[in-house]
């Protein structure tokens, strides 16, 4: 391992380390604009110049590999002068518009100019001006501010896999352009706003909304898909203004999808901020007391076997637990967390988890996707597949409809019969998986929500056995959930007891008049018409589909407004934290159930968040291990699913036709609607 000295301090680094990385390891910060840890090295901004003793010219440290015996100076007069020279050139064409620039206060160029900028400009000539480009509804461009670091170009090329940005021209005439005006065809496009070191690319929906120092930061997790990306919620005056990614190497690295980032404008429209009661066909606002009394009366009047509860896609563990406890205390068996009807093997965690873990994708050496489009169901996970393909060129195949996943995919067809051939080992790709050391079998939640979902699950499981994907050291049988609540509900065992109704059973029973009372906890992805004649309570934050035929609307809190625990598709519990209190008279979900239980005269065994969390921990201990992967079930893979059942002939279908609108929040978002329109127009 080469040794070098940095500002007189000896350090030994791994062969192939760049000088910039070595400096970071030695605790010396090197300014940079174009260099980014997760992108290829461009070496074009020259801000990272350092001096090597005995070498006449300064070095671009980001691109220079360490050699043994190097003596690097980062604070010499020459370095300072060189960086000041670079800064002066960068500022030649950069406008002095910081006071009206959204990057102001969190701008790398502004910060570095403090250390390397001249007090006055020596430049007297005309500055160049560049026409702004139309990058669609999410990314605002002010191209005159661009310093041509090409981070955005490299991100779209390398990470997003949508090579739609490029540099046109050279020298003074160089510009960043998009292949098509009006839209970037990537679910990760918002990340280029974070990557841009200046104010050339800023967030369009957040334009002129706030200065960074006015914002409160809340570290939380995203719940708009099942990856559980780490986010920071920036809010001011009780309103979420933007969402940014946090680094979590095990899940999202430092990217988030556009829905996670930009759907938050939907948090302030179509909100339920007070209880409503339907009387004579119309809703009228009522007090909490009146609303809870009405719910309690209806619930007490309904027989337990004619009562049901269904939890939705955004529900946290606390709300689901309290609802299930309340219902089960009344002898209600029909409680379900699978509003899409997914055929997960109850009681078998391996049947609903992404067992290989998201970080495990970095090890996979052959991948089979079954009935899933990860690009739309979890874009950060899709980016991880792409990263793995770029690093190792692994074979990736799919059973399902053909779409562009941003990496080459061997399409095996959308007919489920292909899965049966794979499970029997008679399909050539089964051999590819069999020869792999870390085969990864990814089953989409949509494939399991089909009428033959149990058969699909059983065959996928059988395939894992056939190719040896599920062993002690590696379990490649992985389910990709698409909603943040599902894995948590399954871990909690929120499925109907024997004789109880599942989600589709509830809808059928309601249509036939066999259901008297239904409680929907944010369940919107169902047919609300089915419950037209059932007394329905909808508890949630948006007046969305589930509220349409409800009789009582109870205002709950959104994920940015309450303490809640979510379990991501890996089975990893993570906590969402409130950025501000819920609006109006809305309340955290679990508190509503505590109040309702009191109204019913049979209080729950807990009346505080701590008490509720202790109850969850007692039931499922690992759910208290926040941020940790769950202990894997011991091999071999337990039997689940129904591999011997009959497969439907119907091909697997795309389950997320519109990435931008999948939940009550994103459906209420004007930004997401604009994105959907832009994609449709392009």
């Amino acid at each position, binding site marked *: 391992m080469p040794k070098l000295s940095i500002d007189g301090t000896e350090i030994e680094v791994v062969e192939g380390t760049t000088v910039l990385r070595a400096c970071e390891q030695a605790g010396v910060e090197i300014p940079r604009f174009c260099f980014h840890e997760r992108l290829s090295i461009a070496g074009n901004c020259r801000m990272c110049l350092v001096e090597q003793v005995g070498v006449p010219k300064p070095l671009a440290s980001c691109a220079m590999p360490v050699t043994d015996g190097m003596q690097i100076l980062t604070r010499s007069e020459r370095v300072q002068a060189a960086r000041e020279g670079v800064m002066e050139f960068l500022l030649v064409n950069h406008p002095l518009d910081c006071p009206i620039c959204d990057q102001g206060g969190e701008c790398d160029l502004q910060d570095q100019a403090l250390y390397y900028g001249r007090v006055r400009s020596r430049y007297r000539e005309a500055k160049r001006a560049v026409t702004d480009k139309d990058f669609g509804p999410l990314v605002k461009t002010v191209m005159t501010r661009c310093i041509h670091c090409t981070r955005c170009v490299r991100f779209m*090329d390398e990470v997003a896999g949508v*090579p*739609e*940005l*490029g*540099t*046109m*021209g*050279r020298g003074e005439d160089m510009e960043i352009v998009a*292949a098509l005006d009006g839209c970037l065809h990537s679910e990760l496009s918002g990340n280029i706003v974070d990557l841009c070191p200046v104010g050339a690319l800023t967030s369009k929906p957040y334009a002129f909304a706030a200065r960074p120092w006015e914002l409160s930061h809340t570290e939380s997790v995203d719940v708009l898909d099942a990856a559980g990306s780490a986010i920071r919620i920036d809010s001011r005056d009780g309103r979420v203004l933007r969402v940014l990614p946090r680094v979590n190497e095990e899940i999202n690295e430092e990217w988030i999808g556009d829905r996670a980032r930009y759907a938050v404008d939907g948090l302030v429209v179509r909100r339920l901020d007070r209880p409503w009661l339907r009387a004579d066909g119309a809703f009228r606002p009522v007090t909490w007391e009146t609303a809870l009394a009405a719910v309690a009366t209806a619930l007490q009047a309904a027989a337990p076997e004619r009562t049901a509860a269904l939890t939705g896609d955004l529900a946290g563990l606390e709300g689901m637990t309290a609802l299930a406890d309340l219902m089960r205390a009344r002898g209600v068996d029909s409680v379900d967390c699978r509003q899409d009807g997914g055929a997960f093997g109850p009681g078998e965690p391996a049947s609903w988890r992404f067992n290989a873990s998201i970080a495990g994708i970095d090890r996979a050496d052959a991948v089979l996707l079954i009935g899933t489009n990860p690009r739309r169901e979890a874009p950060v996970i899709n980016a991880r597949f792409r990263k793995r393909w770029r690093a190792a060129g692994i074979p990736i195949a799919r059973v399902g409809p053909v779409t562009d996943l941003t990496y080459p995919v061997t399409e095996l067809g959308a007919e489920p019969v292909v899965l049966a051939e794979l499970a029997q080992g008679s399909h050539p790709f089964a051999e590819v998986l069999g020869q792999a050391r870390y085969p990864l079998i990814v089953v989409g939640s949509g494939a399991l929500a089909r009428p033959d979902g149990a058969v699909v699950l059983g065959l996928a499981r059988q395939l894992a056995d056939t190719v040896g994907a599920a062993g002690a050291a590696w379990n490649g049988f992985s389910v990709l959930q698409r909603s943040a609540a599902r894995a948590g509900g399954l871990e909690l065992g929120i499925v109907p007891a024997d004789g109880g109704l599942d989600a589709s059973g509830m809808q059928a029973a309601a249509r036939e008049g066999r259901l008297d009372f239904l409680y929907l906890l944010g369940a919107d992805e169902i047919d609300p018409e089915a419950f037209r004649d059932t007394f329905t309570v909808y508890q949630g934050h948006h007046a969305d589909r589930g509220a349409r035929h409800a009789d009582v609307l109870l205002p709950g809190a959104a994920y940015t407004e309450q303490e809640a625990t979510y379990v991501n598709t890996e089975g990893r519990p993570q906590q969402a934290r409130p950025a501000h209190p819920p609006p109006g008279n809305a309340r955290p979900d679990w508190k509503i159930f505590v109040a309702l239980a009191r109204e019913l005269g049979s209080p729950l065994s807990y009346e505080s968040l701590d008490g509720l969390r202790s109850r969850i921990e007692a039931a499922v201990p690992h759910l208290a291990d926040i941020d940790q992967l769950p202990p894997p079930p011991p091999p071999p893979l337990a039997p689940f699913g129904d591999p011997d059942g009959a497969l439907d002939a119907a091909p697997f279908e795309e389950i997320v036709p519109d990435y931008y609108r999948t939940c009550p929040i994103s459906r209420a978002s004007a930004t997401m609607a604009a994105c959907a329109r832009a994609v449709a127009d392009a």
Partner: protein
Amino acid sequence: MSGGAELFPGPDRAAAEEILGRYPSVHRQSAVLPLLDLAQRRNGGWLPPAVVDAVGDYLDMPSMRVRELVTFYSMFHDRPVGRYLVQVCRTTPCWLRGSDEVLAGAREELGIAPGETTPDGRFTLIEVECLGACADAPVVQINDDYHERLDGEQMRAWLRDQRRPEDD
């Protein structure tokens, strides 16, 4: 890797394959510059967007990457050029040796400014930086040929000669 047949029809097919053969097969994209040159020669001296995209398809390259190259290198033209592309060097040695006079001669003879094409589509006049033939300054590159040690009158005479109808 589609588009090869339409992009390089007939004998050009062999030329394209000869170019590809110079590079390892796993690095087909290395052939992009010579193939763009070939395509430009077969398309009247410029590269229409459809041809640029076709070169990208042929080499399995995103078309954005090929467009970047076309705009980066001054030898590629993304707009139509005349049958004669007159490139007058204006870098210091040529300038000291009278490139202003050469350029003025060309302007007068053709009646166009640098960057323009004559209405008959015969000549395009542009100024360029160093052509690397300073010993014989001033230099003008016309298509693939260098014309050296020119003065304004020689420039005009040459251009006048190319206007002869029997040339057509």
